[in-house]
């Protein structure tokens, strides 16, 4: 509404701002001020920090303004394994979340349509984890996978794990934690898409000689793509930057560190602010590139 009013005001009447455009500006102002203060300013500060040079005095944690682009090369060279791992973990966890969420979303959005109470109950179950802090939930997983836990002992007893192998600290534990934490972000958008699915189209597919599986891939799935796209984006982007699950305080170990953990270590332990900032900027740039390629490739701009 406000954007429309703004557009009309500036394009249609160039002489004096109309009343409508003034109202639009007033309505937009709080958001603009907020974004300027809490998004644009830190972003500029981050880019400036990422280009700083080591202090002339050599004191730890002190940096001078500069234009040291080599900070980026250094960060990339130093932390390439962690960068790669972040995206591999994010990819696997996103796929896992998709595989788990789609059937849940399908059941709630299509099969449970005739029973609104069941539908509401199941939706509540999906968002129920949000009632508890995700730090606490990740701690709970740490307990479940702890070295003395029945789960770990069971896995050892049936030979999945060797007696001296543990779950905590493994890639499996980190990916499982990431997947678990982001399932609601995947389920809800897919549910929203499937809830709108016209089941008469599924009947039309069957009428036109398509088996249930063929109808799913040719009709149901393509029509739920907007939900799948937003679900995967809402999952992939935060997982790439996640530092809780992979942290050694939670589910991670010595060789599960992701970009988030490296950024954290550089900021707070090593106090290497330029490298930490360079990593953050690179992560952001990589995500922007990946996401735009993804959205374009999936050809769903018009559906989004």
């Amino acid at each position, binding site marked *: 509404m406000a954007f429309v009013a703004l557009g009309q005001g500036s394009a249609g009447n160039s002489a004096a701002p109309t009343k409508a455009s003034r109202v639009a500006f007033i309505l937009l102002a709080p958001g603009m001020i907020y974004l300027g203060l809490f998004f644009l300013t830190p972003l500029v500060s981050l880019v400036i920090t990422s280009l700083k040079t080591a202090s002339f005095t050599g004191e730890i944690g002190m940096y001078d303004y500069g234009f040291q682009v080599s900070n980026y090369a250094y960060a990339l060279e130093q932390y390439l394994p962690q960068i790669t791992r972040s995206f591999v973990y994010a990819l696997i966890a996103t796929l896992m979340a998709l595989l788990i969420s789609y059937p849940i979303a399908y059941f709630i959005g299509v099969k449970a349509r005739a029973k609104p109470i069941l539908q509401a109950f199941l939706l509540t179950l999906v968002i129920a984890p949000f009632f508890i802090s995700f730090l606490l939930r990740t701690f709970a997983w740490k307990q479940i996978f702890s070295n003395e836990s029945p789960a770990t002992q069971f896995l050892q007893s049936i030979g999945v794990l060797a007696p001296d192998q543990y779950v905590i600290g493994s890639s499996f534990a980190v990916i499982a934690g990431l997947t678990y934490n982001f399932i609601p972000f995947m389920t809800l958008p897919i549910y929203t898409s499937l809830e709108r699915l*016209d089941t*008469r*189209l599924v*009947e*039309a*597919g*069957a*009428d*036109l*000689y*398509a*088996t249930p599986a*063929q109808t799913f891939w*040719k*009709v149901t799935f*393509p*029509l739920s793509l907007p939900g799948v796209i937003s679900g995967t984006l809402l999952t992939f982007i935060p997982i790439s930057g996640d530092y809780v699950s992979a942290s050694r305080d939670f589910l991670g170990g010595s060789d599960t560190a992701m970009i988030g953990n490296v950024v954290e270590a550089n900021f707070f332990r090593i106090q290497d602010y330029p490298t930490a900032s360079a990593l953050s900027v690179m992560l952001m740039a990589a995500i922007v590139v990946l996401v735009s390629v993804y959205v374009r490739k999936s050809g769903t701009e018009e*559906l989004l």
Partner: protein
Amino acid sequence: MATEFVARGQDLELVGIHKEFPGFTAIENLDLKIPAGEFFALLGPSGCGKTTTLRIVAGLEEASRGKVLIGGKDVTASKPHERPVNTVFQSYALFPHMSIVENVAFGLRQRKVSDPLAKATEALQLVELEHLALRKPQQLSGGQQQRVALARALVNRPALLLLDEPLGALDLKLRRQMQVELKAIQMEVGLTFLHVTHDQEEAMDMADTVAVMNKGEIEQMGAPEALYDRPKTAFVARFLGQSNIFVGDVVEENDHSISISCNGQRIAAPKKRSEKHSGKVALGVRPEKATFHEQKPDLDSNHNLVGPGEIIDIRFTGVSNQYLIDVPGFGDITVFAQNVGKSPVVELGAQVWVSWKVEHAFGLSDLPLKADNDEA
């Protein structure tokens, strides 16, 4: 079965179809046979079970009891995608993410028919929409979408084409135009059409055979002319066109006719046009078969006469005037008079007598219910 390419229509047979939904019975013991190549209309009010019947034929709904045979083969247990049947859905159900030509080619691709796009384009030519082949369904008007839905079903040359009120969403002019086109296409491709509708004009206009369905049962079936000329139940008499119905006890029965006494006046109908010959009987006549007179006419025994009554409503409908005449003891009688300049010029409140030839009267097997009155 679905893989073979059926060139001509096949016959459909429903044997003892029964369908129960939780709490009500949608279809009761339905037997129906539609010969190959026929345009068959299933006509009835909403909720009469006609759409359920169609869905059972398509396999989208499972019958509680009974058998469905297409071309003599029992397909009762077949899944919808295995049946040689295509449906034109009421909502069209075009796939919104596919172009028009891909929608039409969908069935061909499923059956791995060679050159699906060329055949789809050909089908679009039949409905004169080939210039819109690359558009998406939502860019088309309702009438165009309807034609795409028709092309998408026809292109598969199904043994049986099912039409679920496909013209319901169109405006009157477009609907009449589509009726003509649909009938022409059916004659051209020679497929069996099963058309479900609540529009009696549409059914009579297009179908070779009409079955009138009410409360899950077929009340009467036959050629449109026969059904209109001699309805056998009060429901058919009033759902298919309009009827004036008179109820009374049979007071005279001879070789040719029966007469009832209605409010002291005798009304006769030919015996061979009457279902019941004794007891309480309902006789009817179509409004266009009745005429009215300003003076009591002197008529022979080949005519029925009631009156006097008062004209309480006159409606001008273009080709005819519709008069509503209140005759004490008989209720309201409707008379159509064509606007050919010959009908008597009368005004509201005029006193008139209504007459019609005995040969035009028909006798019903049941008595009209109050609900039927409301529907008419």
